[in-house]
């Protein structure tokens, strides 16, 4: 019951901010806030694979792209008939329904892509898995470049703008809470066990293969939702938004924040997004400065800014009196 009250309060707060935020901080800052939210979803979801389960994926942009294009296609081609079906609703609610359907399609397709990448790559470890995921990301991008029905190299334009601060941050909340609850459940502990010691995990009866695939599927689904929100905010998608540098930026976010920590992923996403914006005025030197900053952080804080620090107390069973 109390849970529902919290959710109602959160939704009301988001709606309130939605109504006032743009006026308060201006369109440019508003856009950065949106971008921060999308990057939080990407970082927190990638953290499930790279930080929690200890696998190494550098193809997150691929799942992000799959979600973005899937959602855009559903809304672009199916939009009119969906709108007709819910014509009795006010325009804003129609937008919401469309976005939810798009995000749903995005989550499903990206999840399937995660399954498709996860199953064959289970046998691979470390560097080899990284190469496969990198390859996957590039394959997706090249595939999109050559699919004319979704714009190909011209880019996909004419996507209706449906997402906004409210939807992005609602998704941020849902992502953080779901992944937090997953990681701290007894099922989720199996993900950590795979990272710490795969053989011992097997010896506990953990199906490590299944856990790895699950981490890919769950993570990809959230990346897909991030893609959907992105496409329906910018109203235009181009394969160049999903270059492998995008994947690397997400990795940087979680490493800077503290690999394995959800709070770290959130902090990393906020910092990196803002730093990349602030450094824009350096022009060509932007990425050089960015790299220097990363090197410095890794030199002085190799465990990430937050390390394994956590906001939440562990809910362990109390030590037995003896």
């Amino acid at each position, binding site marked *: 019951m109390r849970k529902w009250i919290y959710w109602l309060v959160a939704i009301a707060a988001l709606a309130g901010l939605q109504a006032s935020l743009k006026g308060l901080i201006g369109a440019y800052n508003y856009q950065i806030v949106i971008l921060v939210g999308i990057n939080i979803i990407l970082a927190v979801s990638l953290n499930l694979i790279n930080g929690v389960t200890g696998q190494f994926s550098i193809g997150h942009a691929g799942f992000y792209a799959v979600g973005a294009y899937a959602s855009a296609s559903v809304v672009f081609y199916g939009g009119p008939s969906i709108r007709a079906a819910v014509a009795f609703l006010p325009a804003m609610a129609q937008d919401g329904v469309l976005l939810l359907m798009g995000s749903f399609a995005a989550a499903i397709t990206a999840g399937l892509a995660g399954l498709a990448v996860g199953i064959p790559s289970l046998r691979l470890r470390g560097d080899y898995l990284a190469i496969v995921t990198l390859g996957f990301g590039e394959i997706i991008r090249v595939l999109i470049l050559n699919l004319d029905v979704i714009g190909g190299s011209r880019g996909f334009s004419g996507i209706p703008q449906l997402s906004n601060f409210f939807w992005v941050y609602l998704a941020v909340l849902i992502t953080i809470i779901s992944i937090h609850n997953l990681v701290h459940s*007894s099922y989720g*502990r*199996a993900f*950590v*066990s795979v*990272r*710490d*010691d795969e*053989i*011992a*995990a*097997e*010896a*506990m*009866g*953990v*199906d*490590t*293969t299944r856990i790895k695939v699950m981490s890919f599927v769950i993570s990809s689904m959230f990346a897909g939702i991030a893609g959907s929100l992105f496409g329906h905010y910018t109203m235009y998608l181009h394969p160049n938004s999903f270059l492998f540098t995008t994947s690397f930026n997400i990795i940087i976010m979680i490493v800077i924040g503290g690999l*394995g920590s959800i709070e770290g992923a959130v902090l990393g996403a906020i910092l990196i997004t803002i730093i990349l914006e602030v450094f824009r005025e350096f022009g060509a030197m932007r990425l050089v400065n960015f790299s220097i900053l990363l090197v410095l952080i890794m030199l002085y804080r190799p465990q990430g800014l937050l390390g*394994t620090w956590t906001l939440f107390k*562990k809910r*362990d*069973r109390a*030590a*037995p*009196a*003896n």
Partner: protein
Amino acid sequence: MPKTMLELKIVSSSYGAIEALKGVSLRIEQGEIVTLIGANGAGKSTTLRSITGLVPPVSGDILFEGQRLNALPTHKIVALGISMAPEGRAIFANLTVAENLELGAYLQPDAAQNERQMDRVITLFPRLAERWRQQGGTLSGGEQQMLAIGRALMSRPRLLLLDEPSLGLAPLLVHTIFAAIDAINKEGTTILLVEQNANAALKHSHRAYVLETGSIVMEGPSQQLANDPRVREAYLGEK
């Protein structure tokens, strides 16, 4: 006639081209502590790894209560009632003692039973309760070994496999660990113990097998092997 719990029939296993086990046959009856002794590289750990499916055997049969284990993946074997404390302890370093134990009960859905089992583990190793919220990686070697055994017990196995539980421990701790092994066995768990410390292993077991370069060269009641001049010379350091 005691019931046979685990039986290996002419099992061979290899790592790539290297044959680590050359037709090993052994048998464990219900309620026993059976120990497997031998020098480094004799194939002791490989035997355990073959039983648990980590190194699937190339030929031969492994039967647990009559069921063939050969083709099963490790987590399915664990589900049948076999549990292993792997060599080198393999503690989940970033999880607390409590979480390590909870993971041991990963396949056991009954929370109340798990609580009771956890109490049993704590009774066996009171030290673990003192370290309850500490991360596994920060424990001492002896405490990690207690945790590894405790964690393996959490799935309430009928057969417990211990891989070198005394490795690298101070003599006093070796004593504690072996006392715990005896206690676990008295409560009804069958144990297969792989050890380099032949002295202690023979003292705390019913029957023993001696492995040399992948083959069983001797077997018999532990008492008898402990008095065998060949064993005394090769494994107990006597002339």
